[in-house]
């Protein structure tokens, strides 16, 4: 398993990024965590529907997104807010989605990030089709799909992996192995030692990487993206990480795991190790740290304000959203005044 920066911040191998680039990634992780914290708080206040925290997975998501071009495709899940945002999907859309507003699923034109997949498994093969289309149009675009360890148990994982390999589509499969499918631990999900190892069944390269090491994730995904862009076909990447929070705000991890393991993983926090690295290199200042915090808080607050300022969606919108042109039955049903 590839690591470039160990939990204590020591660099164990050549870094693919300049210090400035590292600072940007760190700043992004700080901003992502601010969003995560804010969302949890808002959910408690009843301002959001259930929320799936990604705390602990910031490096996997920010590092992966940083390896993409602005117009590459991304198909992720309910837990990939950081990844989606770094790929261009506005925080305000993400917040709106969680307030229960379909308009959240509508990122700006030019942002090729699909709204989060709520079903487990089905969306991976979409990234095969997206990449397939780009391959045919020779646009050079690739498609990255992100999913969890649990998703690899679905038949759709198998079909997606196989199609990508058979047609050699420029698809990057990013599995964030965060240890659990809700309460079901990775060790019980499959007897395969690693998830990366499953790639061999499809004649596809598979690599595992320390998912809490933003530099290692960036490098690994960059290599896969490069392979895809240059016609080398798909890659499966297993980013080994851990879900620090509950599955969602509706979940109680106490029922299936011990605080000790979680504590252990807290010590491998993806932000802390980068901060230590900066400290070692004498590149850290508390002032800068606070600056990032305030800037992030401001941006998230602005996004929340924007999302919450969206007018109450109307009944009519619900009908008109269904087809390019509203159908006769929908028009009739819309017409039926209450009752």
């Amino acid at each position, binding site marked *: 398993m590839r690591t470039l920066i160990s939990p204590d911040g020591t660099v164990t191998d050549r870094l693919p990024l300049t210090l400035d680039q590292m600072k940007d990634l760190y700043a992004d992780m700080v901003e992502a965590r601010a969003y995560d914290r804010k969302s949890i708080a808002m959910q408690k206040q009843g301002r959001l*529907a*259930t929320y799936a925290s990604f705390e602990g997975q910031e490096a996997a998501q920010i590092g992966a997104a940083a390896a993409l071009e602005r117009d590459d495709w991304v198909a992720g899940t*309910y837990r990939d807010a950081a990844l989606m945002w770094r790929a261009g999907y506005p925080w305000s859309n993400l917040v709106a*989605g969680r*307030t*229960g*507003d*379909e308009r959240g699923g509508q990122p700006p034109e030019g942002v090729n990030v699909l709204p989060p997949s*709520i*079903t*487990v*498994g*089905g969306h991976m093969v979409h990234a095969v089709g997206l990449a397939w289309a780009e391959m045919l149009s020779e646009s050079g675009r690739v498609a990255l799909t992100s999913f969890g360890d*649990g*998703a690899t*148990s*679905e*038949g*759709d994982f198998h079909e997606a992996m196989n199609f990508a390999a058979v047609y050699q589509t420029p698809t990057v499969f990013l599995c964030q192995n965060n240890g659990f*499918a*809700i*309460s*079901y631990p990775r060790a*019980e*999900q*499959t007897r395969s030692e690693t998830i990366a190892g499953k790639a061999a069944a499809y004649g596809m390269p598979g690599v595992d990487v320390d998912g809490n090491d933003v530099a290692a994730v960036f490098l690994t995904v960059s290599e896969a993206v490069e392979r895809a862009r240059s016609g080398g076909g798909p890659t499966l990447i297993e980013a080994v990480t851990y879900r620090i929070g509950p599955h969602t705000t*509706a*979940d*109680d991890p106490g*029922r*299936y795991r011990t605080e000790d393991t979680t504590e252990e993983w807290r010590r491998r926090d993806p932000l802390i190790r980068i901060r230590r690295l900066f400290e070692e290199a004498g590149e850290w200042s508390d002032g800068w740290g606070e600056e990032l915090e305030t800037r992030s808080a401001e941006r998230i607050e602005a996004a929340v304000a924007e999302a919450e300022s969206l007018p*109450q*969606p*109307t*009944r009519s*919108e*619900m*009908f008109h*959203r*269904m087809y390019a042109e509203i*159908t006769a*039955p*929908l028009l009739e*049903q*819309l017409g039926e005044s*209450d*009752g």
Partner: protein
Amino acid sequence: MAEMNLAQAVNDGLDAALGADDRVVLLGEDIGRTGGVFRITDGLLEKYGPRRVYDTPVAESGIVGAAFGMAIAGMRPVVEMQFMGFSYPAYDQVINHVARIRNRSNGRFTAPMVIRIPFGGGIGAAEHHSESLEAIYAHIPGIKVVVPSTPYDAKGLLLAAIEDPDPVVFLEPIRSYRAVKEEVPGIYYTVDIGPVRVERAGTDLTLISWGAMMKETRSTAGALEAEGISVEVIDLHTLSPLDSNGILRSVNKTGRAVVIHEAPRTGGFGGEIAAVIQERALYSLQAPVLRVTGPDTIFPLKRSESHYLPSVEQITAAARKTLES
């Protein structure tokens, strides 16, 4: 007798089944350690152990297909789909295998199993968590489709479903899980699959519904009664096999009927009921059978939920329209 809500009643029914019959095993995602996302299987792993209650990988087709094999080999598996919106990956197993093995083998092999599926909206859940596509199950020959709306029924119908020699899709109305409590016998008992449940007798109008929409249906009936209108309320509680005679008995008496469901209108099961009524009771109909349903849209997210779910007002309006004809 203890007071239980519907969720507790299902849990109690599973407990009773596990206790009474060694062939009963439970399979599903997160049903063990956590007791399931709705806590319906809470405590059962602890009580019956890992050879009776299985946490499974996230693989609905695998869950149903494996349970199907177990059933053929003589067990009585009860599987849980986490939400109806996540049951579709198993649809092929249900329609092509579970529903067909008795026919395919001319009775030599059978699949006595239960597929529990929480369904319906109203809790402001995420996308796919509010589905009400009972019609796609009720149309499958070879299975039975049961939908309790009360705690008493939930336990009794579940035990009947587990005893049934044929596969049963058991739909659990999410919105009703913790809505109301009622007395539920602690003992093992069954409620017949098939016959409609006439919840309230009346002479002027028949309201027909199932699952969570029974709540709004009851409120409507109550309000109309207060105005002196005598309403008969039918809880269908078995969609397949459909008890046409039970419905006709009521409509022949009242001459008026409204069917209520939250599934999208077009192709919803309400159409079947209206069709049967006009087919066999046209001449006793004083008014068209009206349907109060969800629209032909996707069940919306939290902020638009109220735009989707049929309301007491809509049911009342339809009832009045029917009564005025």
